[in-house]
């Protein structure tokens, strides 16, 4: 199931909300009845797990068992790590757990890719063609974070299978992140409390995310597809530019919209996930971009790969290369993603020794333009997993395409004029500015001030909801980009 699906919005969510509220009542009663401290059983957690499994099984009726196996492995490995005293044994349990996790990921995500790569150098492997389980990259990474955190004694081991299952399978972040660290939510799995502010902010955030996805990203995806897929054989320079700019905006609104919805739903249940985006296209360098884009992935690689390998202290170049190779690889079993990762690795390495040293002396506007250019070209690599098409795209972009500004190009710009404006403006912290401004104007009004701000939010939420619903009726192409990674 995807979040931007009417069935999810109006069948799954109401059903879940009712069950979860009932479970909440049960939990409260249990708390009153139990004499000593907090009861271990949580009806809310059970409800959340059941609905998460349903959510996943809706799209992957068979692979839901794969996820259960994965959780079982990590549950056992976690217990092993916690149980052993000697460092060696703890490490052995960790390595077994990690190896099994990576083996699952390798088999279901990369087997086809490697067998194809081998076939190209003449070694036939007869590997079976496996369909990619949705969200596997996300839940395997969460598993890894769990094992490592337990091993490092940064988080306590989870002794209840169902609670570990909850952490891995929680539907808000299950299939496309953000990659929630175990440490972030370990406490909230056992003990969480939802305030009115949490629920209100969470809901608001959810509607913002829905609007980003349905209103902006879906419309932009049509433009991007029109040039980069259908029009690729006959792409003008302008077409290439419009197409890749549309994709640049699309992927941001698509992915950050998803993250907003995930974070919002988490908030409504009392979970506080980490932020995943911080206006990435406002970056002043590519290094900066990666601190703002898909932050949960960047920090994962930093904490679980780059620093353990030695970070800045020893063979930094090799570490950087490895981490960016892995970052690319994580996005998909395809060469273009690897090239994309290495491209950023290279740019970041160069930046480190050039721009970053003099960054204060360069005008901000130049830095922004430069960073955006690098990022947009990156999306050009990212978009095409077919090298033939990538070549066509870059040759059109680099000037071999015709200079004609035809009907397609004109129509993509003018017929979507306000969409472009809105998308570009919303890449900036516009919402924050507006909200601060309304707060400043409305809040001081005695008696009605705070409610006036809330009323504006209600208006925004309801408008976004109704528009999204209207646009979702009859929508054909609606999947989130990042669910395929």
């Amino acid at each position, binding site marked *: *199931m995807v979040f931007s*699906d*009417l*069935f999810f*919005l*109006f*069948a799954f*969510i*109401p059903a879940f909300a009712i069950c979860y509220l009932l479970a909440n009542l049960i939990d409260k009663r249990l708390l009153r009845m139990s004499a000593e401290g907090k009861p271990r059983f949580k009806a809310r957690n059970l409800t959340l797990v059941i609905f998460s499994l349903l959510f996943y*099984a*809706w*799209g*992957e*009726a068979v692979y839901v068992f794969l996820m259960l196996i994965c959780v079982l492995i990590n549950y056992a490995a976690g217990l092993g790590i916690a149980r052993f005293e000697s460092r060696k044994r703890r490490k052995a349990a960790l390595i077994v757990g990690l190896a099994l996790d990576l083996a699952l990921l390798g088999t279901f995500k990369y087997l086809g890719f490697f067998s194809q790569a081998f076939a190209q150098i003449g070694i036939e492997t007869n590997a079976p063609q496996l369909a990619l389980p949705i969200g596997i990259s996300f839940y395997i990474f969460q598993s890894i974070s769990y094992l490592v955190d337990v091993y490092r004694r940064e988080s306590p081991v989870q002794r209840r299978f169902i609670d570990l299952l909850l952490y891995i399978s929680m539907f808000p972040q299950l299939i496309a992140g953000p990659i929630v660290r175990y440490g972030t939510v370990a406490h909230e799995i056992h003990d969480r409390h939802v*305030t*009115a*502010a949490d*629920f*209100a902010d969470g*809901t608001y955030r959810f*509607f913002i995310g829905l609007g980003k996805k349905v*209103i902006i990203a879906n*419309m932009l995806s*049509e433009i991007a*597809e*029109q040039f980069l*897929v*259908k029009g690729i054989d*006959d792409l003008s320079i302008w077409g290439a530019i419009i197409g890749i700019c549309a994709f640049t905006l699309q992927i941001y609104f698509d992915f950050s919209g998803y993250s907003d919805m995930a974070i919002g739903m988490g908030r409504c249940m009392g979970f506080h996930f980490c932020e995943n985006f911080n206006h990435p296209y406002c970056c002043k360098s590519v290094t900066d971009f990666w601190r703002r884009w898909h932050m949960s992935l960047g920090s994962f690689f930093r904490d679980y790969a780059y620093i353990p390998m030695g970070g800045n202290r020893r063979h930094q170049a090799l570490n950087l290369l490895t981490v960016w190779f892995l970052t690319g690889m994580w996005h998909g079993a395809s060469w273009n993603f690897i090239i994309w990762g290495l491209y950023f690795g290279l740019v970041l390495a160069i930046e480190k020794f050039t721009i970053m040293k003099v960054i204060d002396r360069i005008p901000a506007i130049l830095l922004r333009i430069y960073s955006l250019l690098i990022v947009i070209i990156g999306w050009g690599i990212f978009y095409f997993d077919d090298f033939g098409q990538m070549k066509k795209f870059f040759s059109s972009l680099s000037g071999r395409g015709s200079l004609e500004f*035809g*009907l*397609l190009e*004109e*129509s993509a710009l*003018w*017929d*979507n*004029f*306000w*969409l472009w404006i809105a998308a570009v403006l919303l890449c900036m912290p516009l919402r924050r500015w507006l909200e601060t401004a309304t707060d400043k104007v409305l809040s001081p009004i005695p008696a009605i001030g*705070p*409610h006036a*701000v*809330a009323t504006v*939010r*209600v208006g925004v*939420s*309801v408008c976004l*909801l*109704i*528009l999204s*619903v*209207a*646009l*979702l*009726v*009859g*929508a*054909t*192409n609606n999947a989130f980009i990042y669910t395929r990674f």
Partner: protein
Amino acid sequence: MSPHKYYIVLVTLAFSCIAVVFLTFPRSKYSELEKRDLAKFPEYSPEKLRDNSFTKEISSWFSDSEPYRDELMTLSMKVNDAKKFSMRSEEDAVSFLAADDGDANDAQSPASSADEDIPQAAGNPLANENAKIAHSGIIIVGKEPNVRSLMAFGGSANGGGEFVNTVNKYKQEMPEVNVYAMVIPLASEYYTPDKAKKASKPQAPFIESVYARLKGAKGVPAHRELAAHTGEGIYLRTDHHWAPLGAFYAAKSLARTAGVPFKGLEAYDEKTIHNFVGSMYGYSKDISVKKSPENFIYHIPNGVAYNTTYRTYTVNSNYKVTKESAPAPGPFFYKFKDGSGGAYSTFMGSDMKLTKVKTGTNNNRRLLIIKDSYGNAVPGYLFYSFGEVHVVDFRYFTHNMKKYVRDNGITDIAFVVNCFNAYSSSAAKKMAHFLTQGDNSVSPSASEPQQKTKETKPAQKETKHEPDSRPAHDDKTPALPATPENQEQAPADPTPEIIPETSDKQ
């Protein structure tokens, strides 16, 4: 109440209202706007559960059959309209609606030859017209209230091999019969403004190339005849079909090729259905099409007697024929009310029929037309030309063609299809299959009692949705315009108020 609680109460209330409407109100079954049946709740099977299609179908059923679907769809069109920059000058307003899910073109490479000696449309009246391209591979030309919507063609000149084979096979297997192929261009051939030329491939090279490959059968140069009359209303502006007037010129061309008499429009009574908005509104989802109604003008012959007999097909939910009725007389022309979106069904009322018209013309020539919905408009102009006109829809025919031709003494067979269907290998295969299929070959699913049947009886007050009278093109078809006609089950215009016209001359 704290502001947070106030927000929660209001938003929850709004959300719950929508949820209650969506969960409890009667679901939409048919979209007037898109002229199609909406998704039904899927049937369960373990295989479907395993390959995730069961749940996927539930999701699409849920979003497809929303209560107030068309109203929401209209809102979404307004949103799409709102994002346009409205300050553009008249000449610049051209849009293209790119196809929703464009598969790449058929593997065939574009033609290199045959482009030279094709007559260009005699002065495209819209060459410098403003236009826009909307989604679904539809080009929208002009501004309200005179918007013209065009379906883009993405085929190459050397496509349609299967169609050529089929026509040749007919000639080969029935050498004594005259066989004609008439491939009708889509409106985009004549009305695509210059700046949108890239969005739609030329169709004349394709048609000429099909004709050049015919052996024994003759190509009917209707496209040249049409090209000479682009200033007249030969295509509907708001429908995916041509206009009856276009069919008139095409019929003239067919009569000339066949060497039979033909009468001009003075031999006809002109009828008008006012305020017609056709299928392109639903396809393009562009609100300007709705705001551009037109007149649907057709002609009823007034100097010749004709007597129409129908055998009506019953089809199941997959549009497979499950039953053929006994021959029953009916009107050839059905009368639609002003404003009816289904006016194109004027001719014979539907596609799901085998039609036989006995005319007062006495020349021993008997014509059989194998057609798609474009072909529906043609036979009405041939009653002065042939003694009998039989009309077979390429999707529904349950007899052995050779036997049928022999039994009815058919002397001429004409394939009358639009470019999409001439390009489509699956359409051609269906037509070829008529030669070999047994008599009364109804679908085996006829025995499945749970299948819903769809009948379109002539005098029925309420027409059921009939399948696709649009150019059904399959996955092999030029895919620039991946319009909904990919789905063969997409029904055409159902119109509640058909009044059978009684002017049939007995």
